[in-house]
């Protein structure tokens, strides 16, 4: 009796019988599904419907049961058993996944490529059952640049290319210049980017009210390095404002404004910006602004001064507790009420301020995590060297803490990029907004699916690349520590 049962049990002694039988059954079951889905051939069609549906699963299950032979000595078989065929339950799940993949490949392929239409430039070519990529092709400019005039779009392209090149300087910097890279990326690069976008994309004069503020800030920071640290706090309180007033009201204001205008560049108001380029612009600026604000509030939350601490906690918890959409509502309908009647802030700028403040709260929490994770010894060592608060944080604490929180920061930035479509609330249309606009065009009704798939692919590539990059950075710094 026992021997009979043993004979039916696959093991090493009857390896060949079961191996061939099992592989055959497994092969049949996969073949059945394959033929069914790729060529709509149903080789088990003679069976009643229910059985015909379940048969591949049963056959495959028996097949996998037969080839589940421990230590068979055949390397591939052992590998297969170890990875997808450890027990009955796993075998069924593996089969189901294989069948799902086989079943879903043909419809996806046919929708994406085989039955899709690519040629032409009107709706008439889209007669097939597949996707209508012609729609994307025709609307491409709108999806990329929004309502930006077609003739001026080279300005966006040129700015982005220039900024990408300037941004990649870090890769080519020699050791001699490496130590200035932080300064470059934190102060100079954002400034250049701002100039490009304001001066080139929107076509405004370079020198306007805010640019004095920026110049004053940069000048005072540079001079600030030479001020003894005892007076630095009061210096920063007074000098930037004084410089700003000085620059604005006393030094050749008119000449600078004239000088800043380029001939031939038309002013394109921000309402016309849109599409993917707007996604980039908003993410870029929010990224630049939310980082220092977040850092300030992270330090504030760990400050020894109770009042500063409570204000920081209040700020952080407030922004973290509300959804972004209400923040944007606030920036759209409530914020103008808080400003003097003749004072107008552009919609885009309001939007960037709102998102930056919102994300800054999240960045602050992430950085606080890094600050808390540092051992006390680091603080004490820095203090024992006679470093003050700012010196200690700039040279000892923050470099280490920021390294620790790179993944968290990257996640926050990822969330920021994914949040940009929400600006539809204030009437700015980036790529998702443009899709919704194009969808309602009477000439092109009924292509919502193509549009969303297109945008999903673009966002997926951006976000996936960012997350992989942050993962790499994390690995890199992990070994350095």
């Amino acid at each position, binding site marked *: 009796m026992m021997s009979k049962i043993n004979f039916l049990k696959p093991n090493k002694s009857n390896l060949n019988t079961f191996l061939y039988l099992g592989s055959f059954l497994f092969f049949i079951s996969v073949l059945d599904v394959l033929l069914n889905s790729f060529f709509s051939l149903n080789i088990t069609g003679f069976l009643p419907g229910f059985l015909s549906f379940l048969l591949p699963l049963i056959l495959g299950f028996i097949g996998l049961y037969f080839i589940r032979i421990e230590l068979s000595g055949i390397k591939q078989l052992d590998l297969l058993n170890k990875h997808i065929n450890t027990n009955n339950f796993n075998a069924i799940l593996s089969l189901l996944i294989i069948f799902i993949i086989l079943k879903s490949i043909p419809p996806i392929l046919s929708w994406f490529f085989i039955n899709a239409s690519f040629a032409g430039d009107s709706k008439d070519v889209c007669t097939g059952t597949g996707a209508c990529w012609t729609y994307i092709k025709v609307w491409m400019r709108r999806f990329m640049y929004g309502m930006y005039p077609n003739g001026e779009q080279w300005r966006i392209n040129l700015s982005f290319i220039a900024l990408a090149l300037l941004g990649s300087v870090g890769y080519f910097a020699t050791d001699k210049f490496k130590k200035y890279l932080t300064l470059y990326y934190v102060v100079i690069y954002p400034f250049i980017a701002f100039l490009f976008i304001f001066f080139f994309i929107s076509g405004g004069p370079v020198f306007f009210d805010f640019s004095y503020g920026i110049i004053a800030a940069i000048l005072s920071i540079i001079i600030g390095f030479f001020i003894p640290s005892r007076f630095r706090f009061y210096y920063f309180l007074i000098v930037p404002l004084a410089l700003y007033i000085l620059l604005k009201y006393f030094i050749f204001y008119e000449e600078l404004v004239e000088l800043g205008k380029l001939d031939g560049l038309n002013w394109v108001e921000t309402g016309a910006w849109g599409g993917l380029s707007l996604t980039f612009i908003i993410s870029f600026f929010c990224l630049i602004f939310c980082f220092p604000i977040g850092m300030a509030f992270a330090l504030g939350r760990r400050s020894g001064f109770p009042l500063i601490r409570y204000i920081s906690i209040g700020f952080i918890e407030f922004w973290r507790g509300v959804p972004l959409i209400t923040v944007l509502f606030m920036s759209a309908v409530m914020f103008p009420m808080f400003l003097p009647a003749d004072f107008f802030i552009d919609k885009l700028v309001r939007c960037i301020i709102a998102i930056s403040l919102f994300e800054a709260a999240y960045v602050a929490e992430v950085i606080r995590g890094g600050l808390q994770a540092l051992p006390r010894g680091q603080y004490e060592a820095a203090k024992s060297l006679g470093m003050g608060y700012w010196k200690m944080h700039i040279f000892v604490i923050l470099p280490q803490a920021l390294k620790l929180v790179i993944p968290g920061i990257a996640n926050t930035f990822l969330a920021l990029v994914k949040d940009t479509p929400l600006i539809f609330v204030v009437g700015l249309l980036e790529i998702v907004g443009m899709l919704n606009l194009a969808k309602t065009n009477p000439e092109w009704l009924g292509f919502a699916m193509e549009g969303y798939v297109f945008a999903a692919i673009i966002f*997926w590539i951006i976000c996936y690349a960012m997350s992989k990059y942050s993962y790499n950075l994390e690995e890199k710094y992990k070994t350095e520590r």
Partner: protein
Amino acid sequence: MNFKLKDLGPQLITVIAVVLVFGFFTYNAQVNMESRGIDFGYGFLSQESSFDVQFSLIEYDGSHSYFRAYLVGLLNTILVSVIGIILATILGVIVGIARLSPNYLINKFAAFYVEFFRNIPLLLQIFFWYFAALRALPLPQDAEPMLGIFFLTIKGLYVPAFIWQNFNIFFYSILAAIIAIIVIRIHAKKLQETQGKQTPVLLISIGLILILPLLSFLIGGVGLSFEVPVLKQLATTSFIYEGGVSLPPELIALALSLSLYTATFIAECVRAGIQGVGKGQKEAAASIGLTPNQVLKLVVMPQALRIIIPPTTNQYLNLTKNSSLAAAIAYPDLVLVFAGTALMQTGKAIEIVSITMFTYLSLSISISILMNWYNKKIAITEK
């Protein structure tokens, strides 16, 4: 008293700056409102709202007050959040465990799911489900019934309605079962601590929660019947279903995309939690003779839950806040009904936006206070 004049300077300056900014804003707001002839106040909440809401859990029409409209929006937000949280938890736990499976295919499938859904903006996913996927559903007259009683159509999902008789008795029976389970749990814990005896609490609980309501059906005179939706012709081409409960497509799209999106994050929390329990713990537990089930129940899960629960609660909070994206597809949630329609009608921007923000804020602060309390309770007390 450790008071230093030096410390006072920076604090004073910060406070003055904050007060100045707020004062500036308030002053401007006052001037602006005066010039536009708007008065500040929350009195409008009791006025008649005179707008309609498509979908509401409580009785509501235009003759009710703005406060009632606020409640409608709030309840809709809570409804979609609760549905989303339940679905996301189920899906997230399954995917999170699948991520740890030794089976290569399952593992990669789960990883693909996580990477795919969390790298696409939620708003895009909502649009996709609402405008592209759900629009491909059949019209009411062409819909095939699922299991004979559900109808999934372009106008929403129609499910049978429960019609209860003596519902209160049924409710009390469930309440009694829950109280009994709590008492038994406490008793079992005492027994375990004093005598080391283990009671099959789970089996008893399941039995109680099944048997007591069943008894209420048999003896208590509780009756339950279903009202199946029936197709009704309004005009030659216009059909609707009557009877039953109808869930609007906005709700379906929103709940679906919220749960699919949040499930990816919950899956990562679950994975991190289970991975966070050291291998030594499992081996130690096995070496003192616990069965694999006991290892999971008594050693791994309590430690894994300690890691899993705080970030998962955070995700629930995110889901609730993300449900405000409902405004984009016109699901009447708090933001759409109150910060949208009501704001348009009254023009009371400051009041309405502040109420909306305060609602979300109090929700998340209360949950984070609860979380802090829980964290303190379960934290491993170190020397």
